[in-house]
């Protein structure tokens, strides 16, 4: 089972990303759960969202402790302590404009998702870009499924642009590797 934790601020769309990822696994004929964390904090406060992905039905709803992927929609949310929450081969994926800070850590991958989003939708909404990035660095979800799934959670106009973001962020890593 692949376990993923998203870090974002309320309103950044971390949970939407998790839902798109879950819906994409469905298209991939996998099983998945997507769930938010809840708390009293409001829009703007740091929040988390979660995915579990597996080839068989997932019936364990308990908390995720160790992650295959930790995804940060915003590098201000990252702290190095979080690396302890990764499984042995886990990866932390960080949206940052200053990748050099993270260069020394083999478990960390970075992408300037804001930049990609800003170019396409004029807003620093990083969530879709991070999905594209994830598809790129992992075999657990396919870009095409993400593209299909994202349509379900976004209005038609948004969806089209998000396709572009997905593609671009996907390509970003494909180039890197």
């Amino acid at each position, binding site marked *: 089972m692949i376990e993923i934790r998203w870090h974002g601020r309320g309103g950044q769309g971390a949970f939407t990303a998790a839902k798109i990822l*879950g819906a994409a696994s469905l298209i991939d004929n996998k099983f998945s759960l997507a769930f938010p964390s809840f708390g009293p904090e409001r829009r703007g406060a740091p929040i988390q969202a979660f995915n579990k992905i597996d080839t068989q039905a997932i*019936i364990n*709803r*308990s908390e995720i*402790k160790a992650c295959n992927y930790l995804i940060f929609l915003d590098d201000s949310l990252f702290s190095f302590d979080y690396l302890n929450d990764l499984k042995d081969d886990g990866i932390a994926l960080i949206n940052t404009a200053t990748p050099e800070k993270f260069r020394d850590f083999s478990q960390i991958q970075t992408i300037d998702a804001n930049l990609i989003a800003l170019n396409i939708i004029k807003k620093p909404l990083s969530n879709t870009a991070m999905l594209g990035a994830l598809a790129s660095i992992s075999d657990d979800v396919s870009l095409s499924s993400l593209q299909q799934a994202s349509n379900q959670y976004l209005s038609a106009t948004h969806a089209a642009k998000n396709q572009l973001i997905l593609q671009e962020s996907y390509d970003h890593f494909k180039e890197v590797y």
Partner: protein
Amino acid sequence: MTKAFLSGNDAFAEGVRLARPQVISIYPITPQTTVVERISEMVEDSSLKSELIHVESEHSALSCAIGASAMGARTFTATSSQGLLYMAECLPYASGGRFPIVMMNANRSTALPWNIYGDQRDSLSQLDCGWIQVYVEDAQESLDMALQSYHIAENPLVSTPVMVNLDGFVLTHTYETVEIPSQTDADRFLPPFQTENKMSLDNPKNLAFSVGPDNNMEFKYLQHKAILGSKRIIEETDAKFAEIFGRSYGGLTQGYRLDDADYILITLGSITGLCREVVDELRERGEKVGLLKLRFLRPFPSDDLVAALGSAKAVGVLEKDISFGYEGTVYTNVNSVIAKNGLRLETYNFIAGLGGRDISRENITAIFRHLQTGGQHVNFIGLGVTIDD
């Protein structure tokens, strides 16, 4: 039939849509809210044609549903926690009046302290109110039981409201894959609501009357009998459902690897899945463990319990509930079956998940250990402190 990636609440809303309730009263409360939000969207976009009423409180939500049901309309409402308690007066009102309302309850802890997370103290604290109570495990069962509940509730032999309970957040807000039946199939499954228990201009009735000592007990007995009798209807409903939709839940309970099981864990709701995994794990190690999921708490599945527990050595009841000053209510209910039937086995209670505390795989494994080795009867699982004084 289509597949979608939905939360438990979303799935339930789809089930409601397919059941075509005619009057729906809504009032928000976390973690029920997204159900009524989905339903509002359905009414707005006409995929559900229904009178949608924005009431001013939960007491009003159920009062409104009772009024509509008294006119012979199929009705729906939903609540959770404080809301369930705020409408508590209307619960025996609806059941005593035999109004087959279906209500979803998002299981959530009750104040004080305030807490929006999932435990089952809300609905279990109202177990005596004369409603049929169902606890579902995942989003698919949520959708399916929305439909099945109307079929059960409206059966003239039952004519009793049904409360469908979804664990807050872990089920209501968790997204997973769900099959959505077609409206045609749903209509084939669920006929329009018909009853004698309603007003009509041709045959005027006086409803919700007083009954003094002379006759009152008979009305209460009839109510009791109807719920006991619903056991059969629940099974028939499930069979019919299986026929049309190909999914079946087994009636009042659902056993898992019970054959020859010495140690059985009783569960309800969404924790069941994890417990099944642990059963598999232990079985693989050759341990004779099994699981019994209680789907219905009223009617209480006494016969199923006797059948399942007959030859076990110990049974545990895992519940997100405590009746302060005693033990978990489900445990109490299970123990009664054991006492009445003179079953010889040890019983243990595992109080877990209060106020949303996570229940881990390790917790469940430890619970099975406890069943095997014995120990205290009533156990709080996952307390974060030393019990020092």
